[in-house]
């Protein structure tokens, strides 16, 4: 007898040798809270939804936005706001429905796949926000350049000196730097948080897929 069969013999021989946990201890355990990966994903996802929503709310009251009202460009900004809410509702609904599907009684493959799907919805929502943020920045920059009296005056002055292009260049450069910083920060956050949290999950999922190729 060798290898696994030898191990099986030992395994069977000793299957009742574990220190037994009493009923009282089990009662205690079931009243403790879980520290499972799904719980963490759920908490972090809710925080993400909250963070992005709060961020857009804060933006509304900011000085920039108040200044915007004086430009009278509601017809451009209103659709953006409405789209934002619809998208939030859409992603949150799908995230929640996927979360409800997660069940420890499914097969390992279905279980992991459902967890990944839940996560993907939040991920898509974040990417939507990044693209949305970039698009809004471009529109905001354009509106400022064409509607802000101070800026128009400044550009005119530079234009008279023949340096109008410099102002545009500086303006766009600042927007690009800001956006790069913003996207970089989010990327770092994802690498850190989800790298640690989901590494094992993806590894096991890949392994299962590999077996069934």
């Amino acid at each position, binding site marked *: 007898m060798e290898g696994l069969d030898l191990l099986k013999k030992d395994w069977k021989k000793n299957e009742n040798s574990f220190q037994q946990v009493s009923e009282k201890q089990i009662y205690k355990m079931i009243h403790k809270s*879980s520290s499972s990966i799904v719980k963490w994903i759920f908490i972090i996802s809710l925080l993400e939804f909250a963070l992005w929503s709060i961020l857009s709310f804060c933006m509304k009251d900011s000085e920039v936005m108040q200044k915007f009202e004086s430009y009278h460009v509601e017809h451009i900004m209103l659709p953006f706001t409405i789209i934002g809410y619809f998208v939030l509702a859409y992603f949150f609904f799908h995230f929640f429905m996927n979360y409800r599907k997660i069940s*420890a*009684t499914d*097969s*390992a493959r279905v279980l992991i796949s459902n967890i990944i799907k839940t996560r993907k919805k939040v991920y898509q929502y974040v990417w939507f926000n990044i693209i949305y943020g970039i698009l809004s920045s471009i529109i905001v920059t354009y509106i400022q350049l064409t509607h802000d009296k101070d800026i128009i005056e400044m550009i005119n002055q530079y234009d008279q000196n023949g340096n109008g292009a410099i102002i545009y260049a500086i303006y766009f450069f600042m927007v690009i730097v800001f956006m790069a910083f913003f996207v970089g920060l989010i990327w770092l956050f994802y690498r850190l948080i989800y790298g640690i949290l989901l590494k094992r999950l993806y590894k*096991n999922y890949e392994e299962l897929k590999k077996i069934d190729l």
Partner: protein
Amino acid sequence: MSANLEQSFVQQLQANQNIIHKICRLYTSGEDEHKDLFQEITIQLWKAFPKFRGESKFSTWAYRVALNTAITLYRKSTRTVSTTEYDTTKHFIKEEDYNYEEEEQIKLMYKAVQQLNDIEKALVFMYLEDKDYEEISETLGISEVNARVKMNRIKGKLKKILNP
């Protein structure tokens, strides 16, 4: 949840707890980790229990939830990093049937199994538990044929670890 449900769960789990201990033995390497995983599996079983309708045996149902917890849901807690590796084979040696060579081989086998990845461990676990390939394939969500192929590969891999 009602007290009756709680009592029924605790009693059944108490009677079937060795299933969980055995999974903890394969997936953890310290006493603290063993206890930590045991607790998480217990919580997950309890959470899933209201949906357990008794169509299958409690043990069959528990196997799946417990394995899923070990493979997928369990997040190793940093607060219970164990500094004392405990020898899982120590208390399994009985004097009367002590066979030095065989015991050494068993020890090596346990060490080799510890080096396998989570999915391979699940296959080995079900093999040791005499589960048929139908149940293995349903538990992991892979086809029966591929489960067999993978099991043979694991046997080969273990041989290689033992005789590099």
